[in-house]
């Protein structure tokens, strides 16, 4: 209990501190001005969401291999948390894009593949509600999760080749890209804060899913006797 409170307090405080840093400490961007400050929130949420999906993919693979229900609980937890963060990304992006590009949405590679990623994991969560038997639900959703995750790079490749307005990658985007040195501390701090917050959400949701699994087993036992 104490551990949960500490984790919760640390995550919330760090996110508030990151918000403060992005508004008041980070330098103003040369062309976009204050508008650029949404970047710290937008990109750190995107990274946290992708990390959640990556952990989810690993637990889907582990479930198929080991058949331990813990990996199923972790899989659905990561999918839900990833969908939550991706929803924030899909909302905060257009808020930035309208003043910067003049439009809310453009069918560019990263926007579109993020949208498809979001749709695929919504389908994953829907699939789980439509299979009753717990072991079957775990196996089928794990397999769909695997197919969905390997599809995402292909979607990205397709749209990058044939459609393309999102700013070129700033981080690891090759020569002449990169953050101004003054922005780096705030950015990495925001990423760290958001990952800690993600971890808090995952641990809480995992505990809930574990309880659900146990209740389901008890209910079955009660019905059988």
């Amino acid at each position: 209990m104490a551990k949960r409170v500490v984790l919760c307090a640390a995550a919330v405080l760090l996110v508030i501190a990151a918000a403060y840093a992005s508004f008041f400490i980070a330098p103003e961007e040369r062309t976009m001005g204050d508008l650029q400050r949404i970047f710290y929130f937008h990109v750190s949420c995107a990274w946290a969401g992708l990390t959640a999906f990556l952990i989810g993919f690993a637990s889907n693979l582990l479930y198929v291999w080991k058949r331990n229900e813990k990996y199923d609980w972790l899989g659905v937890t990561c999918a839900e948390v990833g969908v939550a963060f991706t929803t924030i990304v899909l909302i905060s992006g257009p808020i930035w894009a309208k003043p910067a590009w003049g439009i809310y949405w453009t069918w560019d590679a990263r926007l579109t593949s993020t949208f498809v990623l979001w749709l695929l994991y919504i389908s994953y969560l829907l699939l789980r509600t439509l299979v009753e038997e717990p072991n079957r639900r775990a196996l089928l959703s794990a397999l769909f999760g695997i197919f969905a995750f390997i599809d995402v790079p292909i979607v990205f490749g397709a749209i990058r080749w044939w459609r393309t307005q999102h700013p070129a990658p700033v981080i690891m985007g090759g020569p002449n890209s990169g953050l101004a040195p003054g922005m780096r501390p705030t950015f990495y701090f925001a990423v760290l804060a958001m990952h800690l917050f993600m971890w808090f959400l995952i641990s809480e949701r995992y505990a809930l899913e574990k309880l659900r699994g146990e209740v389901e087993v008890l209910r079955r036992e009660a019905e059988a006797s």
Partner: protein
Amino acid sequence: MGLLSNAAALLGKEVRTEFRSRELLSTTIVFVLIVVVLFSFTFDPTTNESHRFGPGLLWLAFLFAASLMLQPCFLREQTNDTLSALRLAVSDPFAIFLAKIGANTLFLLLTELLMLPVFAALFNVNFRGQLPGILLTFLLGSLGISTAGTALAAISAQARMRELLLPLLLLPLLAPILVASTEVTVGLMSADPAMQWKGIGFLAVFDVVFLTALWLFGEYLLEE
């Protein structure tokens, strides 16, 4: 050898079952025809617009048709309780998938080839001289749709609301196929036709990735 001969025998079974009733093919063809006609109401289908939008609408119609056509491929086995027998009969469960993918690709390809002249006439699109390229695109596109679709049909057959679930799972997964095959078809049907080998390569990569995934994970889809 065992895998391929098993798959060939099962493919014969799938094709025979279909051609005895021809239910699947006839309904799919009528469905695509209805969709293509309805699409023509959404814009002026005889102008230059149709060169730009036509191929995309055609592929969208194929995708919708496939998401309906692929439903019965495992449902039929389930209602007749033949899936366990099939699994016992083959040494590698991937043979079942290979046969179903082969059959579904064949049915989809037949539908597409029958619809191509109808589409060209209705939308005033010219494809003469480009038939080999179009055939290749149709083949690779249909193979990708069938591979991903057969895997997901095995999933959705075990769930409730399966008729609605399959399109929901399948259509977002097929987004790359839609983009690539539309681009290649637009190139082939334009006033100055050109073959986009990049798109053909992309379709081939999609097919190989999903065939490999199914080879690795297919047996778990058929577990009881």
